[in-house]
């Protein structure tokens, strides 16, 4: 059988490749201290960024470029999904309404979910979490709305414009850094003014600001993706 042959070939192939990777990884010892740049971050994160969560500090501040790119990737995904699934006229086709438990629960839970998401991204510099999980949580809230109600739709225009404006604000924050500190994505809040005390909510320089922006952006974008995936084109297929 061709299929069995293919499967066995595939298994042999992946075994060899896997063995190779394993050999390579065996020279990268597990559980040992291999930090070089990482230790620098841990040593200086508090005084240089004012954040407690080193991961957040790296994501937003030290390696801010990556995060800008990451936000862009998500933006591309939402734009791309929107472009691909674009139809002149579309609506939701779900026919089965959610059960009573789901609808009631959603009505009750939705504000809390959004609030929780906001909490996650506002406290990104102090506790685990940050803009991405926070935004995803908010999107989950909208997902619940979509599942519970057959006619619910997010305000598209508003969401799209928010998406754009929030993204622009992110870049603008970076450009303000360029103007004030002459470096793009310069942490102008913490580096110039040292606002707040380390460990409190009002600290961490521009990390909370950016995480709020990211949270909003991720939330709107993921909701947009969900919205696009759930709606189908009607009447004519252009």
């Amino acid at each position, binding site marked *: 059988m061709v299929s069995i042959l293919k499967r066995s070939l595939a298994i042999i192939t992946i075994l*060899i*490749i896997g063995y190779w990777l394993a050999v390579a990884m065996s020279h990268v010892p597990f559980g040992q201290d291999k930090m070089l740049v990482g230790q620098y971050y841990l040593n200086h994160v508090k005084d240089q960024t004012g954040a407690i969560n080193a991961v957040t500090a790296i994501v937003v501040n030290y390696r801010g470029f990556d995060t800008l790119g990451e936000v862009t990737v998500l933006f591309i995904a939402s734009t791309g999904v929107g472009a691909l699934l674009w139809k002149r006229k579309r609506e939701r086709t779900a026919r089965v309404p959610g059960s009573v438990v789901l609808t009631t629960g959603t009505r009750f839970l939705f504000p809390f979910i959004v609030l929780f998401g906001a909490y996650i991204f506002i406290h990104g510099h102090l506790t685990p979490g940050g803009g991405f999980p926070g935004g995803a949580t908010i999107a989950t809230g909208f997902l619940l709305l979509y599942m519970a109600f057959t006619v619910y739709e997010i305000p598209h225009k508003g969401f799209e414009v928010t998406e754009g404006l929030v993204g622009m604000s992110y870049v603008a924050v970076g450009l303000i850094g360029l103007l004030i500190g002459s470096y793009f994505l310069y942490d102008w809040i913490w580096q110039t003014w040292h606002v707040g005390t380390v460990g409190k909510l009002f600290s961490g320089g521009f990390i909370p600001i950016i995480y709020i922006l990211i949270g909003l952006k991720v939330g709107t974008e993921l909701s947009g993706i969900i919205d696009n995936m759930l709606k189908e084109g009607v009447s004519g297929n252009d």
Partner: protein
Amino acid sequence: MINEVPIILFVPIVAGILAWVLDVKGVRELIGLAGAVIPVAYLIKVYPTVADGKSITYALTLGSFNMSFTLNTMTWYFAIIGAVLGLTMALGMVSTAKSGYNWLFALMSFTAVLGVFTAQDFVSFFLFWELMTFASFMMVLKYNRHASLKYFILSVIGAYAMLLGIALVYARTGALDFATISQVFAKDAQLTGLSGMGYHATLTFSRTDMILLFTFFLTAFGVKAGAFPLHVWAPDAYSETDQSYTTFFSGVLSKAGVYGIFYVLLMMMGAKLYFSLGTFHGHPLFLYIIAWIGAITVVVASFLAVLQEDLRKLLAYSSVGQVGYILLAIGTGTALGFSGALFHVLSHAIFKGLFWLVTAAVILRTGKTRFEDFGGLAEKMPITFAMGLVAVLSLAGIPPMAGFASKWLIYEAAIQAHMPLVAGAIFLGSALAFAYVVRFLYSLWFGQRPSDLDDVKEAPAPLLVGMGILGILNIVFGIAPGLVVEYINKLFRKPVITGNYYKMITPNGTYNALSVTLVLIAGIVIAGLLYVYGARARKVPVTDTYQSGNPVTEEYNLSIRRNFYRPLAEALDFWLKYSWDRFYERLGQLSEDFADVLRKSVYNGNVQSYSWYLAIVLLILALWGVL
């Protein structure tokens, strides 16, 4: 610094561009002519300098390659041949070219050929080589696309082979200019010679390198020279273009290949090739190969020329064959042979140029190309006929024409080099040449004239001037071969062939052109007197042929104008089945089929297969990493 060289080089192409841009009838002809005359004038002007053994160099930098062009004794010889032929081409084109397009590319190839001849480094050599190919391709393209495609593909193969050769030379020597490379080769040849005697030295070029270089360059130059078995493009390309241009195309462009073989393979790396590749029957192997390629080219092309029914095709095959003579002469490997080759370069250029101009005139006036449509044109175009006669005599190697002098040298060289088979090829080729020029002579000029050719006029004046130049040159160099020989001796810096203006003395014999001429003239005078006073002409019908017992039928009707050599074709039937042309077509077909299979199986549209490709690459990486 502006000296004569850039003017000689670039005037033609500038004139060509101007002619193309202006493209007004009358103006473009004037510009084009000027563009062709100026190089000739300048070349004549610098003659005293180069004849003294001095050289004139022009250097420029392009793409941070240093390029230089030099006129010296050697390059001037080729350049003047090119320029004179270019001038006659331009004269011919005044009558035959109908558009600026022709002028542009004809003059572009003029520049390109001069560039090839004068280039002193491989970059400019290659650059102008390609320009030459491109320009001539464009000329052929306008008239026949299939022929041009064949020409183009073979030229591209040749060009890339040359590129590889150049790259290999560059890789080993780090230089691209001829002077340095020649030095390296010379030194390396000495070392090779020494290492053959037990002395160990690190060589710049290994034996493999030399084999590769020889193959690459021979392919490259062989294509352009039309050497067997790369000749297949030539008959079509020569015949299917503006005939005035063919004057230049077959007379000079093919010489670029000869020049390459002579300069690069012989003068530059000859000694090294000799030591690396060894000898065969006491003869340097690489020269032996060249000689045999030349001999086969002569025989094959001459046979095929005999069998043609189309005027242009006949001359085209004849051109291929004549270039074979030159290769053969080079292959003898003696100074005499080289002299003969160089002389034949000149004489072939002038008689074949003359041939094509005559053809151009005939085709211009009659619009016909097949022998069966011609006849009796001698009355209508007497001067053209006279010129055609000169060309025929010269090509067939009848004294006192230039063709005889050079061919005689080649015979001498072949005999001196103890290459009897090759010499046999020359004799066979000569006999065949006689067979086909007879056809040209009779069917065009004599016999009954078809009624639609009754109002044919004499060729236009510019064309006649061009023919005149070449015709006179044929006779002058025929009667006074010493003019050429003296110059060639300067090239070798020693008298290879002694004698005076009218007399050539080689180790094996003597040819006194003047006395032969005088005897010949005397003979013609006597024969003429006999004809006028003694003989009575007998009328013969055109259909009175030599069919040796075969009944004359409609389809087996052999006359001088039609299927004259059909019995020969039938005799050669077995050989004619094998055609390199068809072989190449078949090869092309096969590679296209292969391409289809490859394409359909590799890019089969299934993304899973594509993922497998990735997995296989990973697998290779993994196996290579693990093992």
